[in-house]
């Protein structure tokens, strides 16, 4: 017979909130790339406005965690789960900020003609979202092996970032008039690269929740 059912129910609700928050941020990232591709300024503004909802959600989850710590004396894996969530929501929120950052770059670019068709940047975004989604699955399933695997995939994002950077550099070297536009696209790529690093941090926290050990994972080159 399970005891402390009320407490464990509240803990599960918090995890559901984390998933919902992750979902909001995944959407923000993919919509930011859409806005970039489509030069859709209204969409970019909407992403910026929606980031406030992400921030609010983070505070709400944090508040619930504080309540549980103050009132429920969580122990062992329950305590690690709450501490893990507190760290993970900060990372998710920052990924949301990176998406917002991309949306702001979209506004700066305005209706300038595109420099080139976007290929690797959308790939980076898709990879970041895939990693984020799976890292939160690993959180729910308490799957340390999956978390380690996802963290190791950060290299792929770094490689794409290198590729994007080299390509944009070649545009700039050939024609200095492209420098402004190319630089803005490197900012976009940099935001995505940072998001992938944040996912790595989430994976570290999942491993801690499962094993109780702090493990540094896949130190990014950037």
């Amino acid at each position, binding site marked *: *017979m399970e*005891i*402390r*059912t*009320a*407490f464990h129910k509240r803990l599960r609700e918090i995890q559901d909130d984390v998933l919902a928050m992750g979902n909001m941020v995944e959407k923000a990232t993919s919509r930011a790339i859409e806005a970039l591709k489509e030069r859709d300024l209204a969409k970019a503004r909407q992403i910026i406005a929606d980031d406030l909802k992400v921030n609010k959600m983070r505070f709400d989850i944090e508040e619930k965690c*504080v*309540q549980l710590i*103050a*009132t*429920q*004396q969580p122990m062992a894996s329950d305590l690690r789960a709450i501490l893990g969530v507190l760290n993970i929501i900060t990372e998710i929120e920052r990924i949301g900020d990176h998406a917002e950052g991309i949306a702001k770059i979209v506004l700066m670019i305005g209706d300038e003609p595109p420099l080139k068709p976007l290929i690797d940047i959308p790939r980076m975004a898709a990879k970041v979202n895939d990693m984020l989604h799976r890292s939160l699955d690993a959180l729910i399933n308490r799957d340390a092996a999956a978390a380690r695997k996802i963290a190791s995939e950060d290299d792929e994002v770094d490689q794409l970032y290198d590729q994007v950077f080299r390509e944009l550099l070649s545009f700039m070297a050939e024609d200095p008039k492209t420098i402004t536009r190319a630089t803005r696209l490197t900012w976009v790529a940099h935001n995505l690269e940072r998001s992938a690093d944040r996912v790595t941090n989430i994976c570290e926290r999942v491993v801690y929740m499962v094993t109780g050990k702090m493990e540094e994972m896949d130190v990014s080159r950037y």
Partner: protein
Amino acid sequence: MTNLASLEVKNLELWYGKFQALRNISFAIPRNQITAIIGPSGCGKSSLLRCFNRMNDLIPGAKVKGEVLFDGSNIYLANIDPSEIRYRIGMVFQKPNPFPKSIFDNVAFGPRVNGLGINLEDTVERALRRAALWDEVKDRLRKGALELSGGQQQRLCIARVLAVEPEVILMDEPCSALDPVATLRIEDLMRDLAKEYTIVIVTHNMQQAARVSDMAAFLMMEEDRAGILVEYSSTSEIFTNPRDKRTEDYITGRFG
């Protein structure tokens, strides 16, 4: 607050002879919630709880001033029958105190006395199920209650209270004689019971109050040792952001 309140205390004062045990206590206990009364030893927690169903009447020299409103009417009015009150406001004590009778007879005791003896079997089963004890005892209802473990005995005492269909359950340190697992099981049961009943619990175990209650009242003694109500608020407020420095000091272990 008032119309949602199950019990409301107004300017309550309690004396045991010349000793004043409680001073000017006023607060309202919401329906279908768990309200915890916390505070250092001797601050009057149990005395206050016992005012809610006139248990202090049984102590020679005890004198109550002020009002305890139950569903809006004062239970200390002269025409009120205290034993009637005690059925509607049941009580569970620190030590499990089953009668030296069978499990069945313990639960059936109240309904029999009250003449609610029709469908006694159903009443007993319902009360035992409600107290999360049925599955453990259904095959030995005629066995002695004293053969049960401490935690089971306490749940039996809760079933005994439930069998007379009270509206409020007062619990005076209900887990202090139980091991941690039995304690958590009672707490789980309390959460479940709060859907239908109003529960008031006195506990010296602050963590228990934090875990289980919705509202918390913090009592402490003044210099003449009379208990006063320092702070009354939602449990989350009391345990994360108390307004009164004395509450903060108590819950962070700086005194008491």
